[in-house]
């Protein structure tokens, strides 16, 4: 029979009141016993009192019994929970018990696995073998625990194989049944793998989300081990493809495969550990950098980092296109104009009247001049954009001057000027693009020849300036007038009164010379005296480490070219 709680308490209180009342009355009756005969009400009250006592006793007993039951139950549950907790602790962590002397008394399986020892190797041994030689914290910890305190913290302990592992540790003092300190209980969690896994996960997340594409594959089979998200997008595959262990070659077309093979050849056949190549993929221009690496097991792998350079290439191409478009657009009509005039002039279409011939020759000469300007503008534009790459070699300036004399001999003869080479006996080595320097030489020689009086000479010298070589071209012309000296290297500058019908100039020659010399870390300049000729020169840094005779005797080798 279930009774609501409140009713029990009401009954209990009521019966207690009744009991107290009846007790009072009974006592009063007993005291008056001699004076008055027994009252029937006394018995009534006594009965009520008895009932109250019985009821109260019943409830009290019942309550005590219930409490006892409940506490027995909870003790049982609590013990179970402790058991579970211990079990979980043992499963999850490394536990060991040491005695007062610091000798290990017992360890759990996790402990053995974590440190790599067998039970025999640990039981009865001092726990400080786990602390390695450099770790001095063992005695400090023992001291804390022996004073009855709990030690908590991170420790770097050493496994049997000598590997250091990072542990989260709690060491509690241990007491026997009599409450006497009898050693310690240590509970440890290995953080090493957690840290490593965390770091690896973080690294993987970075790699996975990089805009650059990353591919990891086998050196021999080219089977994919990994491709990050950007990499998988290029290959148009999802993450599942990695488990298929497909070869890189299967995902490339024959052209791409050939480029890929050429790219990794130095890594496979040679000693190279890194290769970098720009190649064309069907999805755009790419720059591939591949490293040869060893994975944890020592297997050789290739790691390719691929960067999409389509945009960069497009920008470069646009810059180039602007120059080459101008080139193409101007040179194409010039081809027809010059072609037509040349055919007319040569009489291919029949004999021309003397007047017509004069006109054709004039048109022809001017078209030639126009073409020269177009070419010079383009050269200059390419130079200033850095598009005209310099193919620098170690060259001897003596060879450059000899060649310059040969290739300009015809022009000099036309100007009735002789070229004189004042060379050196010993080499004059510089690092330079000889074709570009030849362009400079031709410009300086033709300028000198143009402005030289008939029958005079143009001299070419090489001078030693210490850390530089100077190449100089001297003429016996009228010299550069004072007012023109500051602007002579500027574009489209022609000194007044020097325009020559016979040898027209584009006004860009010296500007090109200056730019070419500048790109050789050199300087260009001139000395001129009114009416007594000019000397144009350029200075280039000597090539360090080139063979050079100790004595640098200058030997004059006059040579007539014409």
């Amino acid at each position, binding site marked *: 029979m279930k009774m609501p709680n409140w009713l029990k308490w009401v009954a209990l209180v009521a019966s207690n009141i009744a009991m107290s009342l009846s007790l009072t009355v009974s006592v009063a009756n007993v005291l008056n016993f001699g004076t008055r005969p027994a009252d029937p009400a006394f018995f009534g009250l006594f009965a009520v009192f008895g009932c109250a006592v019985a009821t109260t006793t019943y409830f009290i007993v019942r309550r005590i019994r219930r409490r006892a039951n409940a506490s027995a139950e909870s003790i049982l549950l609590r013990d179970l929970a402790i058991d579970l907790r211990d079990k979980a602790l043992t499963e999850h962590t490394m536990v060991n018990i040491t005695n007062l002397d610091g000798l290990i008394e017992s360890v759990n399986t996790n402990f053995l696995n974590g440190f790599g020892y067998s039970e025999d190797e640990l039981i009865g041994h001092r726990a400080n073998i786990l602390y390695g030689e450099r770790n001095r914290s063992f005695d400090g910890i023992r001291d804390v625990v022996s004073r009855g305190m709990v030690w908590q913290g991170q420790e770097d302990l050493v496994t049997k194989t000598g590997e250091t592992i990072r542990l989260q540790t709690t060491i509690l003092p241990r007491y026997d049944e009599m409450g006497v300190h009898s050693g310690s209980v240590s509970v440890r969690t290995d953080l090493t793998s957690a840290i490593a896994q965390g770091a690896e996960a973080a690294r993987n997340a970075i790699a996975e989300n990089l805009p650059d594409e990353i591919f990891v594959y086998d050196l021999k089979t080219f089977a994919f081990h990994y491709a990050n998200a950007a990499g998988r997008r290029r290959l148009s595959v999802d993450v599942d493809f990695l488990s298929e262990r497909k070869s890189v070659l299967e995902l490339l077309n024959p052209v791409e495969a050939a480029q890929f093979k050429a790219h990794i050849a130095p890594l496979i056949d040679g000693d190279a550990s890194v290769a970098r190549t720009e190649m064309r993929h069907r999805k755009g221009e790419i720059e591939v950098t591949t490293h040869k690496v060893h994975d944890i097991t020592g297997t050789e792998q290739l790691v390719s980092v691929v960067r999409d350079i389509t945009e960069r290439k497009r920008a470069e191409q646009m810059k180039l296109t602007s120059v*080459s478009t101008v*080139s*193409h657009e101007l*040179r*194409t009509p*010039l*081809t*027809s*104009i*010059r*072609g*037509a005039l*040349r*055919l007319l002039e*040569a009489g*291919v*279409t029949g004999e021309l009247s003397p007047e017509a011939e004069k006109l054709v020759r004039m048109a022809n000469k001017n078209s030639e001049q126009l*073409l020269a300007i177009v*070419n010079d503008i*383009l050269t200059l534009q*390419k130079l200033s954009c850095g598009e*005209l790459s310099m193919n620098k070699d170690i060259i001897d300036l003596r060879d450059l001057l000899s060649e310059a004399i040969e290739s300009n001999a015809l022009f000099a003869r036309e100007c009735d000027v002789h070229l004189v080479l004042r060379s050196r006996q010993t080499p004059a080595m510089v690092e330079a693009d000889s074709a570009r320097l030849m362009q400079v030489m031709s410009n300086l020689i033709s300028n000198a020849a143009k402005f030289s009086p008939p029958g005079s000479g143009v001299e070419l010298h090489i001078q030693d300036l210490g850390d530089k070589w100077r190449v100089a071209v001297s003429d016996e012309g009228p010299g550069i007038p004072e007012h023109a000296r500051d602007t002579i290297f500027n574009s489209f500058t022609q000194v007044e009164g020097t325009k020559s019908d016979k040898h027209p100039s584009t006004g860009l020659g010296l500007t090109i010379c200056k730019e070419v010399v500048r790109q050789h870390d050199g300087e260009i300049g001139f000395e001129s005296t009114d009416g007594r000729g000019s000397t144009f020169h350029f200075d280039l840094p000597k090539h360090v480490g080139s063979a050079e005779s100790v004595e640098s005797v200058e030997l004059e080798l006059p040579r007539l070219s014409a």
Partner: protein
Amino acid sequence: MTELKTILHVDDDEDILEIARMALTLVDSFDLHQFKTGTEALQAIETIQPDLLLLDVMMPNMSGPDVWKGAVAKLGRDIPTIFMTAKAEDEMSVELKTSGALEVITKPFDPITLGSQIRTVWASA
């Protein structure tokens, strides 16, 4: 090498075709077949069976190198090819030469010497 007789010339510029025609048939005396597009040239190439291709590099729709490739496919053999380009010092010129073109002639060319220039290249190939 055999004597050079038949030349197939492709250029999208009519004026240049005309200059080249005079240069190669009046100044010189080649059997010259000219086309404004690569497509037309490739349609006729099997009938013409040229000894040499003279191709402009930059042309709309089908570029000179494309015509070259198409010609090799149509004829089923390699064919000596000379390119013409208005772009001086172009990367393309270097690429063409390394991939087997006999020569890359820059425009403007001299019509008086074009024929002998081609013959020299042909002889040295």
